[in-house]
């Protein structure tokens, strides 16, 4: 399914865990340090570097771009580290977060409350994902280097809906299908 940013509430409601989406439009990068700084801006009632309403934050810190290329390798980083900051950003209007890996129950609860969704891009495929990025510019915190907030223009950026607004959880559902042993080494069917 193809989606364009900014994302409407109707589009979000139509997305279910397991859906493969291809995103086009502007998205914003932020990881650990940029999140700390954005939450500080929110606490100080200052505007964020971009309007978060209906927007996507992509957890990544790209490698430097080579000459004539918009960006270097740019795969997702682990999302759980951003869990402590996500609530404040969703309260400010942020709807979609893209990263990798599972997240805390408290994040999932807040995400459903704010009718947001969590997508995963495949980790460790930064060279492939870079091909979907057509433009990239640093719009805030340049002092953070790779961790600065970049505005990316993407075409058909691939991601997989992982948690939806209805409580769907792709990770739990899929792992259950293939799990044939418990962590104590006891095999089951």
């Amino acid at each position, binding site marked *: 399914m193809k989606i364009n940013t900014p994302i409407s509430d109707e589009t979000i409601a139509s997305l279910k865990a*397991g859906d*493969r989406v291809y995103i086009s439009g502007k998205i914003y990068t932020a990881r650990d*340090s940029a999140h700390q700084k954005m939450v500080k801006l929110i606490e100080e009632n200052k505007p964020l570097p971009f309007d978060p309403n209906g927007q996507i934050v992509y957890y*990544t*810190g*790209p*490698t*430097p*771009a*080579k000459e004539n290329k918009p960006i*270097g*390798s*740019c*795969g997702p*980083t*682990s999302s*759980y580290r951003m869990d402590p900051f996500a609530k404040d950003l969703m309260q400010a209007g942020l709807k979609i977060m893209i990263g*990798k*890996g*599972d997240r805390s129950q408290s994040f999932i609860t807040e995400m459903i409350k704010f009718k947001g969704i969590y997508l*995963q891009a*495949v*980790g*460790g*495929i*930064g*060279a*492939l*994902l*870079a*091909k979907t990025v057509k433009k990239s510019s640093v719009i805030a915190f340049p002092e953070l*280097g*790779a961790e600065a907030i970049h505005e990316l223009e993407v075409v058909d950026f*691939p991601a*997989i809906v992982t948690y939806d607004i209805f409580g769907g959880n*792709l*990770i739990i*559902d*899929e*792992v*259950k*299908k*293939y*799990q*044939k*042993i418990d*962590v*104590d*080494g006891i*095999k089951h069917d």
Partner: protein
Amino acid sequence: MQMRKIEKQLIINTVKRLALDANMHIGESFLDKLRNALKLEKSNIGKHVLNQIIENDEIASNDFEPMCQDTGLVVVFLEVGYDVHFDFDLYDAVNEGVRQAYTEGGLRKSVTLHPITRGNSNDNTPAIIHLKLVEGNQIKITLAPKGGGSENMSLVKMLTPAEGIEGIKKLVLKSIFEAGGKPCPPLVVGIGIGGNLEKSALIAKEALMRDINDESSDPLLAKLEKEWLEEINLLGIGPMGFGGTTTALAVKINAFPCHIASLPVAINIQCHASRHQSALI
């Protein structure tokens, strides 16, 4: 053996080349391992993910782009012959090679100045350097850019001798299950058994430097490597934690004698960007 003098520039150039090559080229034997996993994977999403990983690694190699944006904290193993002579600081030379690769080669700088106050060293130094003295008049350099996501899921645990093989296996299964997709499976699982606190961690890291297709020369460890790989792949985590039958591609166990009271176990997790290269100079 005749004493041989090694020039600083040779170390710098070799380290630089290894750092760049390791970040761009995963290597054919690892790609074959991924292609084989794709044939065996049962989950549709798992297959989709493996396909993307293979395509990515081919793009990275052909375009000389880093396969992953996390171009790692550089780990370097130096095996220095007794009959090598050098009149410079070997650690400085290695770090200079890393600095040149990361500042000139389009790699991300992922090293802080200080673990608590953070900041960025801006050239990806210092590398973690392990030095070993060996016979001969050559230097073997093995370099691995190690990503943060998989290293964060690694651990050392001091078990009791009574916990034995079963205790180690449970620790391995539990840590891999709880890590889920975070360390970017399919994984290579490096396990260090024995030694003491730091030795177990070091041999676990060394286990990750082994050839992807080898097996331990110790028959017991070789048997455990095979059995535990099968059991890890029954956990259901799958490629990138999306569920499936390919959670790990290999288990590598290294062991060392230990104290009669102890059974140290280190688990060093390697993501699917299993990057390491060696050179003999």
